[in-house]
């Protein structure tokens, strides 16, 4: 490395998706994947003695800190192994085992949880809290980044909190790397990586791609090194919105000026916050006129400007379904 930054130590927070349901359907078993992740963690720790590592485990039900945990690591020290490696390895493996066991032996419950995606946005929030606290305590700040090893699908419920986390990360210049091991591409996490300047990589295990190799090549380099490497290029990230009325992806949409709900056609009343619109569309080149079929909420004639001041957030929350 030519000219180091003011501090060349890093702070890496790894968010491990330990959702048993998702991993059960995978060609790569969770324990095999875990072994590869642990090798990656050791490599990271070996790069710089000042490097800090935090590992978070997330399931559909809970999310907890695995690596720097207040529970003491087992005493049986192995003098053959570097103590830092051993502490991280033992804690991560034991922590994931505890998370998986905690999911419960109940078959029905496990089935239900298999469908539910992991709490990735909660894990990201905790990771950012941790980073902000650590950097507040340090005199020379460490470069912080987050690596999400994701196996589950997107959850529309998480959209707003995930977006909040992404923008908080962007503000704190925290990179978010995403390594998608299983399942379809995650649109939310693609946006997370793109907005924060991290990498989004998908490991196609079926096609023989190795998780460890991908992690080593794309997620190991620090902030400085990334500037001189060619990162994997993300082809096309869709930042278009989905309209609230028909769940169609729209190029040009109509946005309620009060609650920012997106519609694909004009309507006299916003279906989210019941605001009555004036009969004109704002925006250059917009066509005047009202909706040809005022289908929604026309049974709310009393909802004038008075009710718009107390727009119902719960209704808005329930119908927010972007991406």
């Amino acid at each position, binding site marked *: 490395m030519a000219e180091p930054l003011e501090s060349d130590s890093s702070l890496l927070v790894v968010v491990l998706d330990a959702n048993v349901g998702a991993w059960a359907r995978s060609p790569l078993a969770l324990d095999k994947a875990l072994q590869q992740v642990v090798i990656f963690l050791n490599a990271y720790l070996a790069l710089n003695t000042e490097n800090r590592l*935090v590992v978070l485990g997330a399931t559909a039900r809970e999310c*907890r*800190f695995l690596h*720097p945990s*207040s529970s003491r690591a087992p005493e049986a020290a192995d003098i053959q192994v570097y103590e830092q490696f051993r502490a991280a390895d033992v804690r991560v493996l034991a922590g994931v085992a505890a998370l998986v066991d905690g999911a419960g032996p109940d078959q029905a419950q496990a089935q239900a949880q298999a469908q539910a995606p992991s*709490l990735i*946005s*909660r894990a990201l*929030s*905790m990771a*950012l*809290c*941790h980073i*902000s*606290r650590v950097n*507040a305590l*340090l*005199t020379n700040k460490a470069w912080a980044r987050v690596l999400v090893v994701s196996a589950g699908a997107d959850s529309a419920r*998480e959209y707003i909190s995930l*977006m*909040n986390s992404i*923008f908080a990360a962007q*503000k704190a210049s925290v990179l978010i790397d995403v390594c998608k091991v299983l399942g379809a591409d995650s649109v939310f996490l693609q*946006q997370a990586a793109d907005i924060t300047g991290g990498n989004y990589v998908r490991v196609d295990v079926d096609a023989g791609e190795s998780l460890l190799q991908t992690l080593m090549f794309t997620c190991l380099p620090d902030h400085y090194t990334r500037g001189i490497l060619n990162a994997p290029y993300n*082809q*096309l990230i*869709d*930042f*278009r*919105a989905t309209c609230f009325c028909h769940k169609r992806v*729209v*190029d*040009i*949409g*109509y*946005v309620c*000026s*009060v609650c*920012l709900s*997106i519609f694909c056609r004009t*309507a006299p009343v916003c279906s989210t916050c019941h605001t009555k*619109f*004036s009969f004109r*569309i*704002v*925006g*250059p*080149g*917009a066509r005047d006129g009202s909706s040809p079929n005022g289908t929604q909420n026309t049974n709310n004639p009393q909802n004038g*400007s*008075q009710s*718009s*001041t*107390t*727009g119902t*957030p719960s209704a*808005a929350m329930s119908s*927010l379904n*972007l*991406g």
Partner: protein
Amino acid sequence: MAPPGNEPGNDEDYIDIDDTGPDGLKGADGGYTWEEEYKRSWDVIQEDASGSIQSSVAGISEQRKRKRRVRDTEVVQRGIIRHVVVVVDQSESMAVRDLAPSRIHAALVELEAFVGEFFDQNPISQLSIVATKDGLAEVLTELSGNPMDHVGALRDKANKDLAGEPSLQNALELAMHGLRRAPSHGLREIICVVGSLTTCDPGDIGQTLQALRHAEVRVSMVHLAAEVHVFRQICSETGGQLAVPLDADGLRDALMAMVPPPALSASRGTSDMVLMGFPVKSVAAAVPTPCACHHELTFAGHVCPRCRAKVCSLPTDCDVCGLPLVSAPHLARSYRHLFPEENFVEIPPAATAARACYGCGMDWADPQKPQPARDAPKPAAGGSRYQCPACRHVFCLDCDIFIHETLHNCPGCA
């Protein structure tokens, strides 16, 4: 400021300002209010049992943080789409050095921070900057959603050339003219940073005030010297605020208080459907093409869905067809103002069994324990715990502030 040796009782000997108001200007310890920060700061610090003052200093810094903690969480309709004109006084009164190094310098630095924060929290709003000097007003930047335009104008050296007196009326009229083309569903605001106690106006400012009220423009001011009646009147009648900061920190606080979108009054005008475009980010082409915004050759960009012009960054207005271009995350970023996070409740340490803060996962007493660090200073606060009323998880003060100021969602509820 009192010399350090003086007793509070001797104030009359060296201060002869008339302070016969209802409460006088006396602070809690008999000194003047503005002296308090300096005057007794050494009395607060008490040594603890081991003779160290560290716990005392930590207590003070925690106190200061806690002041910022409680915020308004009421769910109200807010003006998410704002059109703001910032008026900067460039009269000779801005050369006064009561703010270091001078009023204009301090004001421009803080305004630059304001612009950054403004677009961070109001991604689909627009800003314009107007300057006034020599009895005239001029537009520095037109209404635009690109922070770099405004930051560039504020950094311009020419801004530090001060001349004559400001003209509040001219500045307000010019600002209003700029706001006239702003759509009615958005909020129209003028924020003035003024250092002069006088204004050099061509006509009756009362008429300007009427026009402002008619156009539903909200005028807020930050005055660097003192409160002036006419300024106060304009602010209160248009629904804005007048702040008179005492120092640079106060100036920053006053400006930052205007960053979150203000609540709307019930009687306010209309709501509209706004036509917006959601461009697709185009991938690197084989050959670079010029962008519509800077006329520079670039590989990547966002393509306007209506006219296919390429712009460099979002959010912006398309330079060719004028369509507002946003991405879905920008809209999502504004949702947090509509659904603010609940304030956490302070609870005594004994009331929780949790061994570590739920957010950062660090122990209360000793954050270094899970993560030893040679250069980490001692923990700032071991004392208080803060509990989210919804999910009942317990957080430390640092996480509480981070969650409410930056993150805007509770990790336990997410």
